[in-house]
């Protein structure tokens, strides 16, 4: 095992890992925002909104993320959308994960005891008030874990932006593997960094889950 190789390349990997973190965080935030919009649309009384939300989720979950990234980054200029790889990556990943998060949120809402909604309605609260005052606060606890799963998927999915020339962790790994032909050592380093990221998220999710969902 070539330890000097690991030593030499580690700074590059650390820097690349930072890019991965940035992309993941930004995509996560974008994804959450879009996800909430989608859920609101899905619960709306307007049929069109409900339809559009369903179509969005179906399309983004029914096609590969890689293809979505290619459409945005490579195909974008054809429709007037010239994006830097980093931006295209964030947008692509964000729009993709939004569909999955929307389902996580929607699932959590539908898992709230229906008696809660009945009680609120029987007092005289309208649909929106019931959702805001009674259903959502309870759904929040239920969505921590599923959203955590989505976040982990996002971190691993961020590797895809290496294909649109974003110099993140997987890109760097591939570069070094193909130049040094020592995949084992390179994998060790990059895998370790990914695992650290993934398990950090899991740790946070576990903490939040225990703190809020165990009352």
């Amino acid at each position, binding site marked *: 095992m070539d330890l000097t190789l690991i030593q030499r390349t580690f700074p590059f990997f650390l820097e690349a890992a930072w890019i991965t973190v940035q992309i993941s965080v930004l995509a996560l935030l974008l994804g959450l925002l879009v996800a909430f919009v989608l859920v609101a649309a899905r619960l709306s009384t307007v049929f069109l909104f409900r339809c559009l939300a369903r179509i969005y989720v179906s399309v983004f979950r029914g096609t590969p993320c*890689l*293809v979505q990234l*290619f*459409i945005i980054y490579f195909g*974008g200029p*054809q429709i007037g959308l010239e994006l830097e790889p980093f931006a295209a990556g964030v947008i692509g990943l964000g729009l993709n994960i939004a569909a999955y998060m929307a389902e996580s949120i929607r699932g959590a809402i539908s898992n709230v005891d229906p008696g809660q909604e009945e009680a609120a309605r029987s007092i005289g609260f309208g649909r929106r008030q019931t959702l805001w005052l009674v259903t959502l606060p309870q759904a929040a606890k239920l969505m921590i874990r599923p959203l955590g799963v989505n976040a982990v998927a996002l971190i691993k999915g961020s*590797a895809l932006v290496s294909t649109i020339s974003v110099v993140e962790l997987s890109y760097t*790994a591939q570069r070094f593997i193909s130049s040094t032909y020592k995949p084992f050592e390179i994998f060790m380093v990059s895998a370790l960094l990914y695992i650290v990221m993934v398990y950090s998220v899991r740790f946070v999710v576990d903490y939040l889950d225990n703190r809020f969902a165990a009352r």
Partner: protein
Amino acid sequence: MQGLDLSIVTPYSELLATGLWWTVVMFVSSSILSLLAGIAFALIVLYAPKLMALPVRFITWLLMGTPLLLQLYVIYYGLVQVGIDIPALGAGIIGLSLHFAVYNADVIRAGVVSVDPGQIEGARSIGLSRGQTQRYVIVPQALRSTIAPLGNNLIVLLKDTSLVSIIGIAELVYSAQLAVSETYSPFEFYLTVAVIYYAANLVLEVGLHLLEKKVEMSR
């Protein structure tokens, strides 16, 4: 939208069809292998001595915590280093199968564990051996609860076959990339590819749904 022209795709229909064919090949072979390996891994983790289960657990931990794309890179370049010179196709199938095997194993293991322990007691109390209990009592029940999650894994697998284009396997995305390099119309081609995947996904979902129904029926 300036100058989008879907007809640019038509001359490349055969190329894309060939690509789709290879996507299907990748999907079917990886599905079968990952299911078989998944069963094997699950059995090891459930019933084999702790020492033997350890490497399986380690690989599971490793493959679940890192991106599939990275795993494909490593296997592709790694096999060459070790001296095994198989074409990219082999690396792709191995990579996909291994990755999804650990996810399938996890599902299967959970399914077996979730069978009511009272069932085991009932079976043993009438004299069935451990093996017979597994075969006639546990497995059929575990099957019912694992069909849906395994189906979900297959749906993910179908989409993830797109990743092997990166290591040079001439499936759908790779074929589209070839077409794009000649026509400089990425939007039309990748959109077409997206539609094809969507349709394929739909077919798969319907198939799985029917399968689930069939399993439900046999009660």
